[in-house]
């Protein structure tokens, strides 16, 4: 992939990012209800103080002006003050972000580790019982609502069998000073294996719940592309060369079959962002998703706005990465 082509793609991102920001801005700017009133609550203040507050928030300016101020601030990660926490929104978000990223990454790993081998096996043994089970499983995977599946897992593993915790990131007994914010990493850095195990047990069910639809989709993609690749001449030719079955399947077929899988995985990582809200709500996971839902009920609009923008920008960038990955992995596509 040439550098100029990469630059061109990057430039194409700009209008999309602008549009996304405009929508995130308008969503909250047009929300009925006066932010000043929300901040004031039941406190009594003078009209002068109220006007001062209004000016401080920039609410006396025109919508367009306010948008540009919003953009300028957003580029500096300044999203205003969280009404509820009375701290900068960016600080509050930064605090919650590692939990969400950690959960998403583990979910991604869970999905990749189960989906790829299953998809490959299903393709190699097409129409076998395993293939049928995998197909039914993938249909179920996209049909199960995450919030319900999560509850079922809790009822089974936490309530009935009592082998995994119901909610949270780590037990109260574990004391892990923050280094990276990722508990799985921090516990290891502190060489606290017990705490690491505890964190791992906590993240297991949420990660499986979050990763389920992605697993289903990736498995389908892997199976379909593996079937497609197995029909190709180069697989027949590899067989004609007398290579071992393992080499034909894994070196010749899988290397090509994984190209669509990897790029779909990048796109689906974006959809994990949406699933986060649900899963974090079900498992009491102290991440960004839960923060956003809470903030909606608290009418803490600056935070909701910042989070919507953050999610959207991440999503757009992930799609961009998916696009690039596809071309980089595919030596045939000349740019």
């Amino acid at each position, binding site marked *: 992939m040439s550098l100029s082509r990469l630059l061109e793609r990057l430039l194409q991102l700009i*209008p*999309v*990012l602008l*549009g*996304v920001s405009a*929508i*995130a801005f308008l*969503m*909250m700017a*047009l*929300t*009925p209800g006066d932010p000043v009133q929300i901040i004031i609550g039941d406190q009594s203040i003078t009209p002068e103080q109220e006007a001062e507050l209004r000016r401080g928030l920039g609410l006396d300016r025109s919508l367009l002006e306010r948008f540009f101020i919003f953009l300028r601030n957003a580029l500096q990660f300044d999203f205003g003050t969280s009404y509820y926490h009375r701290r900068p929104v960016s600080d509050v978000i930064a605090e919650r972000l590692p939990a969400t990223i950690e959960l998403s990454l583990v979910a991604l790993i869970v999905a990749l580790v189960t989906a790829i081998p299953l998809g490959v096996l299903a393709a190699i043994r097409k129409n076998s019982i395993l293939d049928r089970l995998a197909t039914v499983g993938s*249909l*179920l995977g*996209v*049909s*199960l*609502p*995450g*919030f*319900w599946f999560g*509850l*079922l897992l*809790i*009822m089974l593993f936490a*309530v009935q069998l009592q082998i995994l915790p119901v909610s949270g990131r780590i037990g109260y007994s574990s004391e892990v000073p923050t280094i990276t914010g990722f508990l799985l990493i921090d516990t290891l850095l502190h060489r606290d294996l017990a705490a690491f195990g505890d964190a791992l047990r906590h993240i297991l069910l949420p990660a499986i719940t979050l990763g389920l639809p992605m697993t289903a989709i990736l498995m389908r993609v892997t199976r*379909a592309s593996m*079937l497609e690749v197995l029909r190709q001449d180069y697989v027949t030719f590899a067989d004609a060369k007398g290579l071992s079955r393992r080499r034909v399947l894994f070196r010749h077929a899988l290397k090509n079959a994984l190209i669509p899988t990897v790029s779909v995985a990048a796109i689906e990582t*974006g*959809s994990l*962002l*949406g*699933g986060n*809200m*649900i899963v974090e*709500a*079900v498992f009491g996971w102290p991440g960004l998703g839960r923060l*956003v*839902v809470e903030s*909606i*009920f608290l009418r803490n*609009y600056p935070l*909701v706005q910042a*989070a*919507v923008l953050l*999610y*959207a920008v991440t*999503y*757009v960038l992930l*799609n961009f990465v998916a696009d690039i990955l596809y071309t980089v992995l595919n030596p045939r596509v000349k740019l």
Partner: protein
Amino acid sequence: MTDVTLAHTPPADSLFRRNLRDFRRNRLAMASVIVVLIFVIMTVAAPLIAPHDPNQTDLFRRLQPPAWMEGGDWAFVLGCDGLGRDILSRIIYGARISIFIGVVVIVLATGVGILAGLAAGYFRGWVDVVIGRVVDILLGFPYLIFAIGLMAMMGPGLFNIVLALAYKEWVIPCRVVRGETLAVRELEYVEAARALGAGSGHIMWREILPNIMSPVIVVATIRMANVIILEASLSFLGLGVQPPTASWGSMVSDGRAFILEAWWVSTFPGLAIVLLVLAINVASQGLRDAFDPRFSE
């Protein structure tokens, strides 16, 4: 416009019938259609079918287990929730919300998507650029985030859910229609219609649209399953229909408080969602295999 008779329209009808026959032969898909139909009947005839008033609370029946368990009562087959309301009746009424929103959102979105997609694919040029930009921007949001943001802005309510979902949903049929239109507009019979002096409107509605409906319908069914899950998710988060109206998502949410002692409160409404969504997914897979074999293996 003058009355132009167009002889070159492909025989869509016979193909349609053959596809329909293929679809009917798919037993699993037909079974799914029947399941969906049962849900639809439940929706329409809820007051007749439901054994109880879905909002009738009875504190003596609080968390009463399903009929086959100890303490159960066959008058309340699936048991009662935390306020002693009959779960089965609430599921039957909840189907109304899911199906209503699923259908209305998809019909709205497909309508808008067809208009926008036809315009973009047929006129190309700046129309295509403008619509394409809007589509790109809307695709830039994870679906649930977008809907949640809108719900936060508009406040809860049935109508607002429909809007919150439809605002983004139309993008999907729009892209399908645009792509198909681009492919079809250059075909001979469209060319012939244009040569005979048919207007743009006539060509789009009469010549192009009928020939691209298969993929549009297939996509619409798949998306309906998704919309139903999204609505349930919003309701689960408390951003959907407000209590006491029964919706499956909020019923599952209500049951979270009782997972230790009353598993049935959350489990059955969730099962209803899975059953409906699964049936729609299987049926749409069958539709796709029969009507649009390009996309199936």
